[in-house]
């Protein structure tokens, strides 16, 4: 392979890590509640806007990270409370529509508060490429990769090493039995939505300096994250990273060799293939179990 191809794969793979991160957010809530937030992309976008706004307040620049993450957690908890809990209590699939609607509200809110235009997200991290064996990567891109891997490692360690994390796994494995141990499934589901919001906010903060910030910045992103989640399955955090890297590289190769208009094609083809091969894929299981 020549350097141009490797270059394309590397920069595509970095974007793929962001898809993996958003897909990981789907996995977190699916594990505990068999539900996902279809407005996850809007959560990414709103968190990015909140962080951007924080950078303009005169506060120290990096305060936008905890600020944006805190917003993500609160927004995630809000989605659970307002859009998901009632539906789950009544064993209905109403959360699907509710989370879509909350997402649409999110877009309107963003347009009203911040306007429709895309805005740049200033960053002090250099965008001058560094050469690694002939492949150029910018420190900004490295920061994205580090951020994604770091948060996933921290959450996985939380799940394996802390008692609360083990309780999280117990609720995923058998909700009723977990309740018998004194573990509140409701609180565990809240926790998972909080974590999922945190992950979405981090995705927004990480990509914004590379893309831009705008009301629809995450609609394509979330669709691809969805493809990744369906293909990788909703259990394995490792799986989403692999599929994310693969899809990211494939996209960048496609847009270079086929044409930049085809950039979104691989993700959609992947999703269609996955749904054709495993039609019960993502939340199909929940529906089938109900019947």
């Amino acid at each position, binding site marked *: 392979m020549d350097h141009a191809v490797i270059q394309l794969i590397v920069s595509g793979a970095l974007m793929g890590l962001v898809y993996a991160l958003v897909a990981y957010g789907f996995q977190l809530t699916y594990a505990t509640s068999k539900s996902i937030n279809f407005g996850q992309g809007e959560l990414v976008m709103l968190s990015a806007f909140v962080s951007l706004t924080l950078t303009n307040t005169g506060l120290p620049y990096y305060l936008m990270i905890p600020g944006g993450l805190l917003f993500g957690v609160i927004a995630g908890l809000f989605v659970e409370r307002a859009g998901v809990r009632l539906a789950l209590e009544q064993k209905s699939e109403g959360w699907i529509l509710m989370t879509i609607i909350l997402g649409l509200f999110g877009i309107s809110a963003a347009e009203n508060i911040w306007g429709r235009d895309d805005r740049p997200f200033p960053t002090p991290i250099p965008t001058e490429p560094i050469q690694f064996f002939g492949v150029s990567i910018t420190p900004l891109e490295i920061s994205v990769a580090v951020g994604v891997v770091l948060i996933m490692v921290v959450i996985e360690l939380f799940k394996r090493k802390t008692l609360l994390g083990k309780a999280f*796994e*117990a609720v995923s*494995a*058998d909700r*009723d*039995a*977990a309740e*018998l141990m004194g573990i509140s*499934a409701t609180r565990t589901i809240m926790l998972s939505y909080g974590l999922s919001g945190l992950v979405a906010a981090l995705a927004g903060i990480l990509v914004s300096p590379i893309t831009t910030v705008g009301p629809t910045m995450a609609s394509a992103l979330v669709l691809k994250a969805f493809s990744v989640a369906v293909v990788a399955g909703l259990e394995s955090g490792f799986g989403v990273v692999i599929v994310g890297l693969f899809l990211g590289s494939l996209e960048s190769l496609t847009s270079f060799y086929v044409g930049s208009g085809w950039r979104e094609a691989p993700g959609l083809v992947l999703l269609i293939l996955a749904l054709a091969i495993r039609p019960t894929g993502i939340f199909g299981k929940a529906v089938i179990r109900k019947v």
Partner: protein
Amino acid sequence: MLVVTDLYAGYGMSEVLMGTSLTVKKGTVVALIGPNGAGKTTTMRTISGSIKPTRGEIILDGAPVQGLEPSYIARLGLAHAPEGRKVFGPLSVEDNLLLGAFTRLPRFFGFHAKAADDLEKVYNLFPRLKERYRQASGTLSGGEQQMLAIGRALMARPKVVLLDEPSMGLAPVIVDEVFDIIRRLKESGITLLLVEQSAKRALEVADYAYVMERGRIAVEGVPQELQKNERVIAAYLGN
């Protein structure tokens, strides 16, 4: 310790329990026997809160608990080892045991040290669990899973234990082993409500017993009496 009075409960439209009453005194083993579908499991699930009763009262250690969330009832000192074991398959044996003590342990760090004594007690009771402490519990044999389910319930240091059909699907030797354990727990002063298909074995270990038929208690008494009761002999102890 556990007093159930005139309990009504069911699934949606279908009533299963129709006026069940029973009492488990502190430090006693009480057997609940009866034919398939009588409502024994439903009784246990209603006591531990998975099913909300439509009428009746459940008093645990002096406090009414009917209608509370199962996780809350567990915190009040009730441990329920459910029918079919229900171990957390992907989690290790030791993690299952630690989660049994969830309500008593710190949430983040130091929980292992704090549970060390209880872990040791359970491992003494079930050496086979100790040998396999890191194994995913879903890969244990049926007997081992039953032992894990009992051990997990004990980890909570519960005031009352509900044990639903521990012998289900196990080979006779393993059933003997399980009943040996129940006897040892009885000697150590456990307060236990035991549901069991094998009425003979249940009556051997129990201090008191209830026979349930179609959602009601049909006969009750000390095992010596029930073992002489012709109706019970005909239905459950016949050979």
